[in-house]
């Protein structure tokens, strides 16, 4: 009946912890803080990662964005920054060149963005992200219409005053009507609504549906042709496409051999890898903090176990006198230290989860509440190891006590 002995020492460990509630709680504080950190950081980072991954994928896989500024910049000196700032704009000239000469990519569309208000009768949609794009844009970012139709080639060519509205805009301007065929106003100009975009949800807490798309040829009426823009390119073969884009742009921009590129080709992968780099750093720092507090917690455990062994010397003597083997005494005290650590781990997991929940609520759901199961196992695993490692010395000391001396101990 060895298992009955295990249950017995488990039971007596819990009793002895209950008998010293405050002391056990204080002892376990280091462990609690350590595990809270581990669980909190893992949960927040993994939640963030999940969110960011879905957000970035909305930018579109296989989509390259050509622009004046790179999305991902390392630490730059003032000079380098100035140089980038002084670059010539990336504009429609480049977009049209890519459209005309490109062979290794499927779709190209300029993306001229500006935030403007839209009106209809008494209603207004404020700060709508109005994008001047081509007929290919929907396919590039993989967004279809849920009603009506998207822009067509003719719409672009004839600079039609038409628009496709995002869900939020429809909600503001047409709360109870079908928007298709109705008219809206952007800065005094009238646009016909021809379609409604599929809902996109949020990215980094920003609604992706407060948007309207109009032909880029019409958009230049608001912005002029000399505005720096993004050029969205859909390419199945990213590397090949990137190479071709470089050569076309270098040609259009008259760069001489040896001159640096004065434009950037961005992809969502680059963003993701930048983000991963960042989370990795946060992760490592937090793990280091957690490790320190776990070790400090472990030393606390060892300390309190040594106190406990010396307080219970008489008890150890009695147990030995009635037939306990050294290994059984060792097991008893080891169990106690492991149980204390696991209780600390349990509290830490609860606390870490609550903290994550709190942060999730405070961030309006931008950081989703997501606790990976493996992090809980990791937390308990840490606690168990610390309990065994730091409990071993005191437990061994207890087990080696001479019964006669232990009984005489005052």
């Amino acid at each position: 009946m060895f298992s009955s002995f295990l249950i017995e020492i488990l039971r007596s460990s819990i009793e002895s912890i209950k008998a010293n509630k405050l002391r056990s709680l204080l002892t376990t504080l280091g462990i609690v803080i350590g595990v809270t950190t581990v669980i909190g950081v893992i949960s927040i980072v993994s939640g963030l990662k999940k969110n960011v991954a879905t957000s970035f994928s909305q930018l579109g896989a296989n989509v390259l964005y050509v622009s004046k500024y790179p999305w991902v910049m390392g630490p730059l000196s003032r000079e380098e920054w100035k140089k980038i700032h002084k670059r010539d704009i990336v504009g429609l000239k480049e977009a049209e060149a890519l459209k005309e000469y490109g062979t290794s990519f499927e779709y190209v569309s300029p993306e001229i963005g500006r935030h403007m208000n839209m009106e209809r009768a008494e209603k207004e949609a404020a700060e709508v992200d109005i994008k001047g794009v081509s007929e290919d844009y929907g396919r590039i970012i993989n967004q279809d219409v849920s009603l009506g139709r998207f822009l067509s080639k003719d719409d672009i060519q004839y600079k039609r005053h038409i628009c496709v509205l995002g869900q939020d805009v429809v909600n503001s301007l047409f709360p109870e009507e079908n928007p298709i065929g109705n008219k809206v106003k952007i800065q005094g100009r009238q646009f016909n609504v021809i379609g409604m975009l599929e809902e996109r949800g949020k990215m980094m807490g920003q609604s992706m549906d407060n948007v309207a798309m109009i032909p880029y040829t019409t958009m230049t009426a608001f912005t002029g042709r000399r505005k720096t823009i993004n050029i969205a390119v859909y390419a199945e073969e990213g590397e090949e496409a990137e190479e071709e884009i470089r050569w076309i742009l270098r040609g259009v921009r008259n760069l001489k051999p040896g001159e640096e590129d004065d434009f950037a080709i961005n992809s969502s992968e680059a963003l993701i890898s930048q983000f991963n780099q960042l989370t990795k750093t946060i992760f490592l720092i937090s793990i280091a903090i957690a490790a320190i507090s776990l070790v400090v917690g472990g030393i606390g455990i060892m300390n309190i176990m040594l106190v406990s062994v010396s307080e219970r010397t008489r008890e150890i003597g009695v147990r030995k006198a009635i037939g306990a083997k050294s290994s059984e005494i060792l097991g008893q005290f080891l169990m106690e230290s492991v149980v204390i650590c696991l209780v600390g781990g349990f509290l830490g997991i609860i606390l870490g989860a609550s903290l994550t929940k709190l942060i999730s609520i405070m961030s309006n759901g931008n950081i989703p509440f997501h606790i990976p199961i493996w992090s809980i196992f990791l937390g308990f695993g840490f606690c168990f190891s610390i309990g065994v490692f730091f409990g071993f010395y005191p437990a061994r000391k207890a087990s080696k006590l001479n019964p006669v001396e232990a009984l005489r101990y005052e």
Partner: protein
Amino acid sequence: MNELIKIKDVTKVYPLGETEVHALRGVDVAIKKGEFISIIGPSGSGKSTLMHIIGCLDTATSGSYFLRGKDVNKMDENQLADIRKEFIGFVFQDFYLLPDVPAWYNVSLPMIYNRVTPRERKEKAVKILENVGLGDRVNHLPNQLSGGERQRVAIARALANEPEIIIADEPTGNLDSVRGEEILKILSDLYEKGKTIIIVSHEKYVAEQGKRKIYLKDGRVEGKG
């Protein structure tokens, strides 16, 4: 082979700082199964040391000790623990009960190491407590019991694994004479039932209980009777 305990020329030397203490200087003791023995002597006579050696809590420096025909000097720590668990029950002057657990749990303690199931442990502990007249004190904590009751709990604990030998070290030392008598009565009842009883004491009336007496002085047997 009818001798349960056979001790020959046993010595025990403790280091004490730079000198040595000779607690036992060649002791011979033979005890038969079912005997009631008193070991008597003033403090410092070595009677506690002898008791520890008989009880397998300690080992002799030299000499031989056979328990039930087995050489105790050749046993390792685990084997000694097994002997204590199966054949010996201790009763101490200061009771040595665990303070935070009820009487029945104290009694059941030796059975834990004998791998008795929890249910059986409790049943048996309650039964033994009833036998020593504490049937209504089963769930009391030690500090809710009188000294005499505590010592009866301790005796019940010593009986838990049904040992052949009960060793009582000054069992009445912390009790008034009435309670002391009660304890001695329980011990002599156990003797009547066939247990081997060894009482260690310096008090005369306690020692008188023994059917046979061993007098110790300065680590030697001074007389028998």
